[in-house]
C-alpha cells in the first residue's frame, strides 16, 4: 500500500435503522421491535458485493472509524485499520459497523424506553446472545439490500460474532476474519466476568438493574468491573514496560491514595468507563461471552459444530494474549482443518496481550491487508 494515499475516513455520521418485526431471542424472550445504530465507510458497489461487516467486542460500538467533527480528538475504536490504503480499504470496500442489541450507544438496550411501559427497560431487558446479535445484524443487512458479505470480521467477542455468522448464515459470508477469539470461554474467563458482574450487581446504586428511575448510576461497580477487565486485557510484560513500579509522586506516602502509576491508570480507565457505559449493558455483554459455545449442542465437538460453515477463514491470535490465548484460536483452526475448510492462521508475536488486536502492529496489518486484497480480488 502506498504511503501517500493512506488516509482516515474523515468525518462520519451514524444512522439508525428501525425494525418493527419482532425478534425471537435464543432465551425464548421476544423483542417486539428494535433499533440498530450503525455507521458505514466507503461506497457500496452496484452489485452490493463489496461489503465488510465489522463486529465489535465487549465495550465497542458502531463507531469503528473516523471522527464526528473536526474538533473530535478520538477516532473510532479500529480507525487504524479502516480507510483509504488501509487494510480495510475504503477505496474497495463498503464497511459497516453496528452497535449490538443490548448496547448503550444508540441501539435498543436496557436504557432504551420500552414502548409498552414508557419506562426504561432496565432489568426487564432480555439477556441477548451472540446468536441474537448475528440475527439482528442480518436484519440490518436485509434492510440495506445486502445478501452476502465479502467478509465478516471482529476481534475478541467480535470474532465470536464473525464465527457465528458462518454458522447462522453459511451462505451469506464469503470470508470470516476471527481475531483474538475463542470457540467458548474458559472457566477462568467466566470467573473474571462473574467478578465484574458481582461488582456491578452488589453496588447499592444498581437497584436490581432499575437504577434509571432513581437517577443514579452504579459507578463503583462499573469502575471495578472495568479495572479488572483492563488488567486482563494487558500482559504482565506490557504493564511492566508501560508502568513498572513507577510512582505517581516523588516518594511513597504510606497511604491508600494513588501511589503507583499503575493505580492511576486503572482508576482513570475505571472512572472514564463508569461515566459513559451502561451497567446493564455490561452485564449482558459479559453474559453473551459466557454463553457462547457453538460446540455445546454437538457434545463439545467443535468440528461437528463448524461443519456447516462454508466461508473461508483467517484466524489470528497474539502470543501474549492470555485471556483469549493462541491455544483457543488453534482449536478453531483444528476444527476447520478437520472440515477441510479454506483457512489460514497467523500467530502474531505481540507484547500487548488481548489488546494487541487493536494495535497497528506492522506484521498484523500486513497479514490482514494481504488477506483483504484477496477478498477484494474475488469481488465481482
Amino acid at each position, binding site marked *: 500500500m502506498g504511503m501517500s494515499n493512506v488516509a482516515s475516513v474523515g468525518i462520519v455520521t451514524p444512522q439508525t435503522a428501525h425494525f418493527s418485526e419482532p425478534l425471537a431471542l435464543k432465551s425464548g424472550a421476544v423483542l417486539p421491535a428494535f433499533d440498530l445504530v450503525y455507521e458505514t465507510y466507503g461506497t457500496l458497489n452496484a452489485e452490493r458485493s463489496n461489503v465488510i461487516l465489522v463486529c465489535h467486542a465487549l465495550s465497542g460500538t458502531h463507531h469503528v472509524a473516523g471522527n464526528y467533527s473536526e474538533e473530535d480528538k478520538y477516532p473510532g475504536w479500529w480507525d487504524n485499520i479502516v480507510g483509504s490504503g488501509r487494510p480495510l480499504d475504503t477505496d474497495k470496500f463498503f464497511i459497516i459497523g453496528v452497535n449490538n442489541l443490548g448496547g448503550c450507544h444508540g441501539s435498543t438496550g436496557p436504557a432504551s424506553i420500552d414502548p409498552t411501559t414508557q419506562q426504561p427497560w432496565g432489568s426487564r431487558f432480555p439477556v441477548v446472545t451472540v446468536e441474537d446479535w448475528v440475527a439482528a445484524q442480518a436484519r440490518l443487512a436485509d434492510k440495506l439490500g445486502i445478501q452476502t458479505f465479502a467478509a465478516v470480521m471482529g476481534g475478541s467477542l467480535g470474532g465470536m460474532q464473525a464465527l457465528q455468522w458462518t454458522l447462522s448464515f453459511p451462505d451469506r459470508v464469503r470470508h470470516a476474519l476471527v481475531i483474538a477469539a475463542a470457540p467458548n470461554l474458559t472457566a477462568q474467563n467466566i470467573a473474571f466476568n462473574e467478578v465484574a458482574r458481582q461488582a456491578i450487581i452488589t453496588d447499592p446504586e444498581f437497584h436490581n438493574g432499575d437504577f434509571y428511575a432513581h437517577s443514579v448510576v452504579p459507578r463503583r461497580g462499573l469502575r471495578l468491573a472495568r479495572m479488572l477487565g483492563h488488567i486482563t486485557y494487558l500482559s504482565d510484560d506490557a504493564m511492566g514496560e508501560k508502568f513498572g513500579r513507577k510512582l505517581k509522586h516523588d516518594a511513597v506516602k504510606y497511604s491508600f491514595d494513588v501511589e503507583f502509576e499503575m493505580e492511576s491508570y486503572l482508576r482513570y480507565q475505571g472512572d472514564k468507563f463508569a461515566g459513559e457505559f451502561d451497567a446493564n449493558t455490561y452485564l449482558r455483554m459479559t453474559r453473551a461471552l459466557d454463553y457462547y459455545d457453538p460446540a455445546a449442542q454437538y457434545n463439545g465437538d467443535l468440528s461437528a459444530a463448524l461443519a456447516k460453515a462454508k466461508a473461508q477463514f*483467517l484466524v489470528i491470535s497474539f502470543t501474549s494474549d492470555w485471556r483469549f490465548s493462541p491455544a483457543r484460536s*488453534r482449536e478453531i*483452526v*483444528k476444527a476447520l*482443518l*478437520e472440515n*477441510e475448510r*479454506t*483457512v*489460514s*492462521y*497467523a*500467530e*502474531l*508475536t505481540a507484547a500487548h496481550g488481548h489488546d494487541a488486536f487493536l494495535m497497528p502492529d506492522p*506484521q498484523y496489518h*500486513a*497479514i490482514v491487508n*494481504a*488477506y483483504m*486484497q*484477496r477478498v477484494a480480488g474475488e469481488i465481482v
Partner: protein
Amino acid sequence: MNTKTSNFAQTVLERSDFAVIARWIKPKTKVLDLGCGDGALLGYLRDTLQVSGYGIENDDANVLACIKNGINVVQMNLEDGLSGFEAQSFDVVILSQTLQAVYQTERIVQEMLRVGKEVIVTFPNFGYWRHRLNILGGNMPMSKSLPHQWYNTPNVHMCTIHDFDEFCASHGIRISERLVMTNGNKISWLPNVFGSLAMYRFEPR
C-alpha cells in the same frame, strides 16, 4: 525451520523436486506441507492436482507470503510437534527440504507418520560429490542445494542418503520409493555420491 523466501513463481522453476512430488500425489487429496515456505509447492500441487493443501510455517515473512499467494497456512513451530492434528487426518504429509533444518528429527518424522496416511521426505544429500570435494579442500560444503555459509545456515542436522537409509531401518520406517536427483535428472549410479537431492516415500504405518 524453512527459509525459502524467494518469489513464488521463481521457486517453482528452481525446484526440480516439485514435479516428482506431484507424481507421488493423487489428485484432490488432502496434503500437509511442513515448513511450506512461501507456499510454492502447495500452489503447484493445487494448480496441477487440485489438492486441498495446508502448509505449516513459523516464519512471519513466509506466513505473509503464503497469505498473499492464497495458500492455506498455519503458523506454528514444527518443533512443538503436530499435537493439534488428528492421527491419519491427511492423505499425504510432506517435509520438503526441511528435514536438515529441524532439531527434533525423530519426533517430527514419527509425527508425520502418525498424521499422514503417506509421507514424503526430501533433503539435500550431504554425501554429494561436490560436498565431499569441499570438505577435502578444507571447507564446509556449499552448493546449489546447500547455498548458505556455515555461519548463517539454518541447517542443523545434515545427513547423507546412506545415513537416512540407516535412520529409516533403525526406526522401523519402510521406504516404498526412493528417488535421487541432480539438476532435475534422475541419478541411479552411486546416488550417495552423484545425487544432490534425495526424495523418499514411506509406506503407511
